[in-house]
Structures are given as structure tokens and as C-alpha cells.
């Protein structure tokens, strides 16, 4: 949308507020108040009124003090400029923004009055101006209004100012919060159409496709949704090449799609931009699935369990890997001890997976404290040898459940059973369905690259 960029070139930085973001946060406390030179004599030319009004408005916007009089004076000066040059779109926009800011700072906000003023703006300028309903939304959000009310305000904002992409973007975020994914996608889509070069809009759209994909786990459309999400994340990363977050999410979706080399490349870009837990986590995943375990463990050391609870589980995998490479009783005991430290409800999959792999020493499951649901109990019983194979399979309800049970079947029959040599397991579970990236998928990959048993199992 070239015009908005062109206008932006002509306009001052105060337009951050015009793009429906909050006013610029001050870097330092600015307490310059009004001085006599700020008040222009009557009959001053429009350009002076505008310059002074704009200066006062910026001063107000940059300050953390309550400079209500400064804003009022800014609004007066800008009104004078517009009175003389009503067709100058720059004057119109700044005057309106100051007025809207003034109105929004009152105890009671009159959206109708602001809308009336908004409707007098040149259509081009409206796109850049603060939407009256957006102010209502901001005030409601500050007051912690319910999500439904916030959505109402933003819907109104998009009606009042449909060509401002930020309105649609905020609406998309709200719909996303409300888990109304398709509406979120629709709203993000409009924002994206209005401003195709803005990475955040592609990302928002992609995020909702991603969430939809997770909601459709193990269903036929999941892959298509993930594919859509991945292309949108990649598009966002391409448009905003300094945003590590976009690269990290792009990497994550590639990983889920099994496109490990692409995932690795995006993860590398993400980490180069910012060594955030998200970026490092995706890098860990990419290395892990490339079977570059030693490098993966190095990355793992930069992650903190306090920031990401998954880290504990990765650490256990690391311990298992180390144990399988170089067995010692002491290390075995240490692993058992580490496992005991993991919350059993959280780490139930360890118990499922590892129970049959440890002949002894694995702490017994405290059924009551773990609070297993029916499925978990059946899996645990099966792995413990107390449930029959036939029942185990037939009792699966969802598609995901079936897949999961197949995995545990393989663990028991191809890895753990006395006759198993692990070869079949390694051949068939090296690349499990990674779209869900459930813990079983991780173990599937790890187990297929390490020996399936421990000494004495």
C-alpha cells in the first residue's frame, strides 16, 4: 500500500499513535511544560500553527508526565492550522490525532464525537488515523474488559476504518485469543491483503493455521494446515528478516512436517538473530532430528527448565543417550534418581517408554498421585505386561491414540521382548510421524539410534 508509506515519509514519528499503537514510551522523563513561546499570536500563518502544534503534540506523546494542558494547546494550534488550510492532509491527520488523544484522555470517552471528526478526514488520511473505536478498545483492554467486549470494539473499528490493517490485525489477535481460529485467519488475511509487506500479518495468519493444525492432530487435514502455516511463517521471516521469532516458528513447523534440513536452516537464522529460548529450542529440535545428538546436548545446556518445562525431559533423553553409549551402574542409578525428580504426571511418557526398558530399579508408579486417565492407564498396564495386545489395540479411540499405541506396541515387541533385537524398530520408527512432535516421537527417534535395552533389562 504505497500511499501509507509515502504519507509516512511526509509525517512525523508521532504517527506511531496513528497506526493504533500506544504512544511512544519515553526513554527518559520529559517534564518540559508550556512556555510563553508555545502560544502563537492570533493571525499566525498555518505553517507556524502546524509546526508548533505538532511540536507540542510530540512533546506530550514523549512524556510520562500528565501534560494535559500541553495536549490541549497542541490541539488548539493544530485546529488553527486546519482552519486556514483545510485540505492539507498532513494538518488534518495531526490535528485529528491530537484531538482524539485529547478525547481519549478524558474520564468519559465520547466515541461518537471522535467518529464525527474522523469522518471529516480525507479518505486517504483516515487510513493513517487513530480509529475512534480503537480508542474504546484500548480503554476497555486497560480496564480488563472481557474478550467479547474487546472483540466488539475492534469489529467496530474495522467497520469505521476498514483500510487500516492494524485494526484487522488486532481483531485477528483477539479472535485468536478466543480460539476462533477461522475468524482470526480471515481477519489476518484482510490485514495481509492491505499490507502484504508486513511480516507480522503473515505471522498472525500463520499462527492461527498452526493452532488449527494442532487442534486437528492426527486428522487428515492437519498436514495441509501445517503446510499453510509453514509457508506463512516463512513468508513472515522473509519480510522481516530481523525477527528471530518468525524464523523460530518457521523452523518449528518445518520440523513438524519432517522437513528437517529446512528446519535446521531457519533455526540457525533464528539463533543468529536472538538466542531466545524459543530459538534455541527449535535449534535443539533440528539437531536432535538430524541425529546430531552431541551438538543437541550442547544447545540443551543453554536452555533453562525454569523457562521451559520441556527441558527436563530433554535432559532425561540426554541421560538415556549417555547411558546407552557408556553404561555404568552409577549412571544408571543417577538416571533413575533424575527420573524420580520429574513430576510423574508431567513425565508419564517416560514411565511408559522406559518402564519396560528397565528391568529393575524404576520407581513404581504411584497410581493415585499420578492420576492417570483411562488411556494412560491402559498404556501403562500394557507396557507392564498386564494387558493383552488385542485389547490394547482395540481400545484406541482417536487417530492419535491409535498411533501412540502402535508406538508402544513396537517398544514392547520390537525392543523390549526377549526375542527382539531392535532391528525392526530401528527401521520402522526412525522417522515417526512428527507432525505432532509428541514425546513419543522424540523417544521413537532416540531409541532408534541407541540400543534398545540396558544391560540387565
Amino acid at each position, binding site marked *: 500500500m504505497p500511499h501509507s508509506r509515502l504519507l509516512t515519509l511526509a509525517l512525523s514519528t508521532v504517527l506511531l499513535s496513528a497506526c493504533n499503537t500506544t504512544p511512544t514510551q519515553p526513554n527518559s522523563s520529559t517534564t518540559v511544560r508550556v512556555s510563553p513561546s508555545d502560544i502563537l499570536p492570533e493571525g499566525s500563518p498555518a505553517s507556524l500553527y502546524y509546526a508548533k502544534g505538532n511540536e507540542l503534540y510530540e512533546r506530550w506523546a514523549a512524556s510520562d508526565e500528565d501534560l494535559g494542558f500541553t495536549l490541549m494547546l497542541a490541539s488548539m494550534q493544530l485546529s488553527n492550522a486546519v482552519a486556514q488550510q483545510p485540505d492539507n492532509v498532513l*494538518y488534518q491527520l495531526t490535528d485529528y490525532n491530537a484531538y482524539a488523544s485529547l478525547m481519549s484522555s478524558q474520564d468519559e470517552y465520547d466515541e461518537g464525537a471522535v467518529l464525527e471528526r474522523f469522518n471529516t478526514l480525507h479518505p*486517504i488520511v483516515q487510513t493513517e488515523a487513530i480509529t475512534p473505536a480503537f480508542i474504546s478498545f484500548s480503554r476497555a483492554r486497560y480496564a480488563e474488559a472481557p474478550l467479547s467486549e474487546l472483540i466488539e470494539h475492534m469489529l467496530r473499528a474495522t467497520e469505521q476504518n476498514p483500510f487500516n490493517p492494524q485494526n484487522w490485525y488486532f481483531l485477528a489477535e483477539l479472535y485468536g485469543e478466543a480460539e476462533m481460529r477461522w475468524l482470526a485467519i*480471515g481477519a489476518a488475511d484482510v490485514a495481509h*491483503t492491505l499490507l502484504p509487506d508486513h511480516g507480522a500479518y503473515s505471522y498472525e495468519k500463520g499462527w492461527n493455521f498452526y493452532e488449527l493444525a494442532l487442534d486437528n492432530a492426527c486428522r487428515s487435514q492437519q498436514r495441509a494446515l501445517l503446510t499453510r502455516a509453514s509457508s506463512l511463517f516463512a513468508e513472515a521471516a522473509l519480510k522481516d528478516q530481523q525477527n528471530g521469532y518468525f524464523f523460530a516458528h518457521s523452523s518449528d513447523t518445518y520440523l513438524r512436517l519432517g522437513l528437517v534440513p529446512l528446519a535446521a536452516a531457519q533455526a540457525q537464522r533464528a539463533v543468529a538473530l536472538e538466542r531466545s529460548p524459543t530459538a534455541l529450542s527449535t535449534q535443539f529440535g533440528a539437531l536432535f532430528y538430524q541425529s546430531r545428538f552431541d551438538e543437541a546436548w550442547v544447545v540443551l545446556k543453554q536452555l533453562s527448565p525454569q523457562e521451559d518445562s520441556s527441558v527436563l525431559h530433554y535432559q532425561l533423553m540426554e541421560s538415556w543417550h549417555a547411558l546407552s553409549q557408556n553404561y555404568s551402574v552409577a549412571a544408571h542409578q543417577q538416571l533413575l534418581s533424575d527420573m524420580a525428580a520429574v513430576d510423574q504426571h508431567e513425565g508419564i511418557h517416560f514411565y511408559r517408554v522406559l518402564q519396560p526398558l528397565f528391568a529393575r530399579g524404576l520407581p513404581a508408579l504411584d497410581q493415585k498421585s499420578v492420576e492417570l486417565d483411562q488411556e494412560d492407564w491402559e498404556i501403562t498396564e500394557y507396557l507392564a505386561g498386564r494387558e493383552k495386545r488385542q485389547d490394547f489395540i482395540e481400545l484406541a479411540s482417536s487417530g492419535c491414540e491409535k498411533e501412540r499405541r502402535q508406538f508402544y506396541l513396537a517398544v514392547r515387541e520390537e525392543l523390549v521382548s526377549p526375542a527382539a533385537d531392535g532391528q525392526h524398530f530401528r527401521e520402522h520408527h526412525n522417522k515417526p510421524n512428527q507432525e505432532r512432535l509428541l514425546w513419543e516421537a522424540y523417544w521413537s527417534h532416540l531409541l532408534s539410534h541407541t540400543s534398545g535395552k540396558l544391560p540387565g533389562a
Partner: protein
Amino acid sequence: MLPRCTLPLSHLLLLVSTLLVSALSIADTPAERLAPTLDEQLKIKVRSDDAETLYSITKGELKADGQWQRSVYISIRVNDVASARDYGRIAIPYNHYYSDLTLDFANTITAAGKKTSLADDAMQQRVTGGGQDFYSDSSELVFSLPDISPGSILEFQYTRSSKILPMASLYADRSTPYWFQSSVGGDGWRADYVHHYEYALTVPADTELAMEAFAGFPDSPKVTSRDNAKHYTWSMEHIPQVKSEGWMPLARTFIPTLHYSTLTDWSAVDAWTWGNVADKLADSDAVKKAVRSLELPAKPTRDDKLRAVYGYLQNNVRYVFAHLGRGGYEPHFPDEVLDVSYGDCKDQTVLAVAMLRALGVEAYPALIETPRAGNSDTRTVSLIFDHMIVHAPAEREGQIAWLDTTGDRSLFPGMSNYLAGQNTLIVNGRGGELTRMPELGANAATLNIDYHTREDGGSIAEVRIDMQGSVEQNVRNWWIHSTDRDNALQQYLSTLFNNYESLTADVVNSENLWQPAYLNARFEFAPDEDPIPTYGASITQIMRLFTSIGNLPLPETRKSRFYDIYPLELDMQVRVHGQEGYLPALIHSLDPHESPYLSIRYNTEAKDGDFLIQAHYRKPALDLSLEQYRSYYELIQTLNNENVWLVKLLDDQAQQLDQKLALTGHKIGTQNAEYFIAQARTLIEKGQFSEALEPARKAVSMQEGSGEAWYVLGMVQGFNALVEESTRSFEVAEQLGYIP
């Protein structure tokens, strides 16, 4: 530009003498020397770095029979090479019909004291006439003295004597201390510092003289009576140099000047002129025939008649001043003019008056002093008028009318706006009426620019410049008489824009007597990097065409008041045409200017998808002190450096969406699911959620198996807060496998 109907008088040399000429000769007998010897003058202290007039002495005598004689002595010391160049040639104009001119002597003395006289072969009398189509009794004496170099003093003395008195009862003269010398390049003049000035006049004792003094000239002469005569003497010492500059005020406001005359009543001039014209105003057979040839309506109005006569003279009578041996004051009879098909201003005026009277229109000749002749003080009478025009008094049928038929294809009624404010004498034989020519309409121009965007992203500016008054007259006259006019027009208009690809231009109506001339031009501009251009407008565009915005003298160099007596009105109307899918937006504007020197105001308007900027420039007549001129100059520089009005065509997204939808409808029709889907999407993007419901529902009803239709319906329902319906619609879309 005025039609020439005058004696060829340099406007400032008028101050020396307007009436007095003589046949050339060097006096056979030594004339009385009016000034000290050159040896004595060598001792005079130098007071100027360039040149200085040591003595400027005039001695005149009016005799009882009205004849007169006047001797003039001038001595000048040149002190630098530039002055030596300027004074290398002395020229003294005169009219050999009315007077004789005798060169008494001309000599030089060098700084070393070497004296040399004028050589016979360095002097010439020549008939100069008046230029193209101008046959008059004008002559000039011209000579070059030897040894003109820095430090030399040159002197010359000449005597004029009357031969024929154009108006017997009138003796008048004007005098200043200065000798006005043309610059060697012919593009200016100089009036150097004067050490000693004296004007002595002897008149018969019973002759009453009226006199007026200006700009410091002594208003009370020394007067003595002896020998039945009165002797007047005026003198001045150490008069500073006057620098020739542009936009100088009236000379008598800053150059010490004396006017004197034996008359103060202009009715004498009326009677004298009437005596020259009265017998020429009758409707002779030739005049009647000319009147019959006019194409008049059945019941012509006064205006019809004025126009018809004007048109007749323009189409049938060429301008020629043919008055050799006739003195130049008496017109030819209309029959003669009709016979030869030419005549000067007097000839054309009497013919026009005769024709109008034959048509029943009251009309008179009127004498007018054009700006070339000056703008005289009329408290003393002299023959100041150098042009004649037609005056038709107000009647029941119309206002006062003035007609000037002498301009070459000038717009009716042919009156130059430069004549406004000039002295005018309506000649009626009943005492006449001395007045000043009223304002003749605005001097104005309007620059119209229409900007369009080309398909390739380039631009077109269609320009039309309408003109009035002196602006129109100047352009029309220039265009008619210029040889390389097409090239000149291109160069002239190139000041409007500096980055164009091509320019075609023309002057329209330059020969049309009834419609003003105007300029047409078309500029084309190549596409910019930005596919949608930005259009600019500045009042300086038209100012560069019609004012001196680019060549005002620096205030530091200015010596005299700044005098610009012609008000000017300039208007601009700029229209930026919108394009489909784009709206013009004003992204930069300018403040108006209000000052005593000029005012600039602006109006803007968004209209019918276009954007209009109107600028109005008004400059009154200016008479500025040096300090005021500095302020004026600085204001002009500010205007020159000011930014411009900028209008940018920006995306009109609502319109673009509508266009896209219309195109879709055109391609696939408007009664199918695909169209209704597109329509619903368009309405969503325009924020018209409730309006989007109907097409969204229609799409689904027409194509229940379309996942996209259900998806769009789901969106529309969601944005209309129909949450449950929206969820169901999305579920169906999902089931149908649609992924947006």
C-alpha cells in the same frame, strides 16, 4: 508596447529641450563663450572618480515676436576609461523644420594642457527620421572630440534658434543642471556630478512667465529688469551624480528641474489643436463611402459602430508617420488617408472621428502624453503630448469610450494600459478638457494548468495562459513582430517547468481584434521512479513569466527610490485530475503573504475527484524608499526559495476494490457463486459487514459444495457477531476440505 506616433525623443533628453531645433553649422563668427576658459577649468578640483560636468550653462532669449534663441555650454572632465568611452560621441537631436542648430565650438584640453579643436571630418548632421514607417523632420548633430582620455576636459557650445513657431502664443522650456549622455552600449544614460549650473533667460518686460521648480531646483530666480526686458537667472552648485537604474521614479521627483511657460491655460492648446483638426472632421464623400462599407446590423448600437470603425481602420489603414516638411502637428485629411491607406495617429484619429460622427456617434480627438514622453506637471503649459486617440463621451447608450486604432492588430479598443494616469487633453474647440486617462482595466494574467497522468505513469500538463491589459498587449505585440517567435516562445515557457520531456506551444488570437490573445502549451513528462507522480504548483511559475522576480537589482546597489507604477494581477488555477482508483491529496501547502508590496492568497478545493489550487497574486503600484525596497527584495527572495504546493495521487482503496469487483463481474458474470463470493469479500474489506451477508448467503445457496463459499459465509457471520452460525459454516468449510 505603444504604437509610435511621436517625435523620436529620448525620454530624458526631453528635460533638456523638447521644441528647439536648428540647422547644423559651426558658427561662422565666434559665438560669445558662456564659461571660463579651459585653462581655468583645469584648476577645478576633481570631485568624482568617473566624470563630472564642470559647467552647464544655458542662456536664452525670447523676443517680442515670439521667436527665441538659446545657447547651451557644457564642459565635462572624464576621469576614467569608462567615461571616456561614453563621452566619445556627443549627439544633439533637433527638428530641422522648426529650428536651426549651430555648433558654436567644441574643444578638448588634456590633463597636460594640450588643447585640440573638433575636426571637420569628425562631425555630421544627419536626418534620423523615426524608424520604420516614420518620416519626420528629425535630425541630429553628432560629433567626436579628439584626446578624450582620463583627465581630459571636453567642451562644446551650441545655439538653437527658432524658425517656425508651432504655437505662436506659447514659449516654454524645461531645464535641469545635467547633461544626459547615452552610454556607449546604448542601454542607459549618465548624468554626472555638476560643479556649476546656470540658466539665464531674457524675456520682454510684458511677458508673464509661470514657473515650477522640482526636487531642489531654486524656485526663486534672481530677476532684474533692464532694456525693456526681464532677466531671470537660476544657478546651482555641486549637484550630485544621478545613477541610471531601472524602475526609477518620475524624473522631476529626484532630478532638480525647472519648468516655465508663457501659458498656464490649456484651452490655448485646445484651440490650437482644434484649428488643426476641425476642418478634417466633416463627412466627405470618401468618408461616407467608407461608412457605407461597414457591416453593421440593422439597428446598430453605439458599441457596434465603435467596433465597426475600429475594425475598418485596422483592416484598411496602415500606420505610417508621413509628415516630412509639414511640422508633424497637423493631420492629413481623411480622404488622403483613405486614398493611400496609411496614416499616423493624428491621421487615423481624425478619420475615425469623422466616420463616427457620420454614424451619429459623438466623438473627439484627444491628445495624450505617453510614458515615453513622460508624465508632466501641468501647472505650466507646454506641448507635452506625443500621441492622439479618439474620445467618445458617455451617452445614454454607453460609457465613455477611448479608441486607439494605431496598434498593429491590437485588441479592441486598442488602448494600451500603460496610458492609464497619463495627461490627456480632450480637444473640442471649446476650451478642451485636461484630464488623466482613467484605469483601462486590469493588467492581469491567469495561468491554468491541468495535470493528467499518462497510462505509462508519465504526466501531461495542459497549460493555458489568459491575459488582460498590458500583459496581453505586450505578448500580442511581441508575437506578431518577432521573427524567431516559436523558439522564443519555447524558451519563454520553459521557465514553467524544468524537467519536461516535450513541449508544444502556440499563441492563439494574436491577430484577432475582438478576442484576447492567449498562450496554449502542452508539456509532457517522463514517468518517475514512483509510478504515481506528485504534482507541484507555485505562484512563482507565473511570476517568472510576468514579473521581474529573477532580475531585481540588489538592494545594496540601489540609489534611488524603487518606482513601479503598474499594478499587476496574476492568478493561477491548477487542477490535478484524479485517476480511477486514486484520489488526489494535498500533502504540502503554503501560507499566504500579505504585505504593503504584494499579496498572495490561496484557495483549495477537492471537487469531482479532482483537486484545485487557486493562487492570487496582487501587486499594487509601488513607490518604495531604499529601506522599503530592501524589504520587498527580501520578500521576493523568500518567495523564490519557498517550497511548492504538492498534490499526490494516492490509492483510493474503496474505489480500487469496487473496480476489481466490477472487473470480476465483467469476466465471469454477476449471477453466480464466484461473483457473490467476490462481492462478499469486497464488502468485508470495505468494513460493510451487514451488507456482506446477502451475497455470502447467495453464494452458499448457489453452490453448497463450495468450501470457499462456506468459509466466506462463516467470516461474514462471525463479523456480524453471529457466532454459532459462523462456527457451523466454518465446520462445513473444513469438512469440504477448504483451506484459505
